[in-house]
């Protein structure tokens, strides 16, 4: 291999490395900036004592067992109309007022709709919390749930 050919190959490989690093760096930096903004929003929530109390109520009554940590959802509920999973709670503020949400928590969801009408009944349903959560705890919980937001970039949903 001639001297010139070696120099050209060194230059090409070096340029490829620099281009790859610039692409990866710029994409990563943009993604980090979005994630940081989202994290800062969550930290702001944590600084609000009522939301912190609501978060505690959420885990005390094991809402997270079905609706997931932070209302992210994902617990399997076979043949549920909501895609075979228990709904997340990141969109409640889009579909419910605080009063409607309180009523929903009090009365629960005794009958979960089927995804496939000919399929089995979904095994999980939401119990009524009428006798368990009330007063300040209910207000804190609803404030917390209404503060939940989907991560940036996630499509809006009508489901809760």
């Amino acid at each position, binding site marked *: 291999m001639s*001297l010139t050919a070696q120099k050209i190959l060194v230059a090409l*490989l*070096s340029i*490829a*490395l620099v281009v790859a*690093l610039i692409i*990866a760096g710029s*994409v990563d930096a943009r993604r980090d900036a979005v994630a*940081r903004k989202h994290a800062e929003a969550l930290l702001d929530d944590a600084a609000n004592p009522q939301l912190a109390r609501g978060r505690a109520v959420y885990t005390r009554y094991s809402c997270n067992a079905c609706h997931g*940590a932070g209302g992210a959802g994902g617990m399997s509920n076979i043949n549920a109309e909501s895609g075979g999973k228990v709904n997340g709670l990141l969109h409640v503020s889009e579909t419910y007022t605080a009063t409607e949400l309180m009523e929903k928590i009090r009365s629960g969801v005794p009958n979960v709709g089927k995804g496939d009408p000919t399929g089995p009944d979904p095994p999980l349903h939401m119990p009524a919390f009428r006798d368990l959560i009330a007063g300040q705890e209910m207000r804190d919980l609803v404030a917390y749930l209404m503060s939940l937001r989907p991560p940036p970039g996630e499509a809006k949903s009508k489901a809760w």
Partner: protein
Amino acid sequence: MIRVFVTRAYRRPRELTWVFGASLFLLTLGFGFTGYSLVYDSLSYWATTVGTNLLGDVPVIGHSLLWVLRGGPDVNPNTLSRFYNFHIGVLPTLMALAILTHLVLVRLHGVARLDGDPRRETYHFFPEHVLREATIGLVLLLALVVYATARPPGLGEPADPSFTPPHIRPEWYFFPSYRWLKMVPMRVGIWTSAGFVAAMVFWPWIDAGLERVAPGRRLGVWLGSAGFMFTLVLLVWEALS
């Protein structure tokens, strides 16, 4: 490294110089991994969990190795103190020894010249060599300080073992291996990655073998360049995904 690789400057008698150079590269990755774990925010915690999990697949001693590294079954505060000691004690010591050996070998054998380059260059270790290396080092350090000051990395949410963030990713320098591990079965991915690293470290002897198989064809240069380009493709692919 690209220049040394293309010009095959690692050929006899400079094989060990290449091995120590490659070791310096791997030690730098070790600094990156242990340093990123020390951040101990949510992403760093889970990146450490996933990264150390790979060790569990090492045959026979994998489980014990994992336990020793983490100081328990999971990533926990013990892991933090162990990684801290690696980061500020073990790795810097190894790095200093590797730099010293690399430097001695470079001085011993001299810097290889390009094939066909008629110039012969010799220079003293002090002040020429020291001055050149110190200048490059200080310029890089200055650039890093300016960048870190202008764009401070900041911290994410505190580590929470009960909550896995939706997008766990390693830092960019591990993107190629991360993408590769996602493309192939885990065990295959770990062994091929280990093979890739071993091939890089022992490349002078592999290249010598290829040269014996096809003299003058430069098989090693083309094969290595293809491997290098493949690594860059994996890097960009993971960044864009």
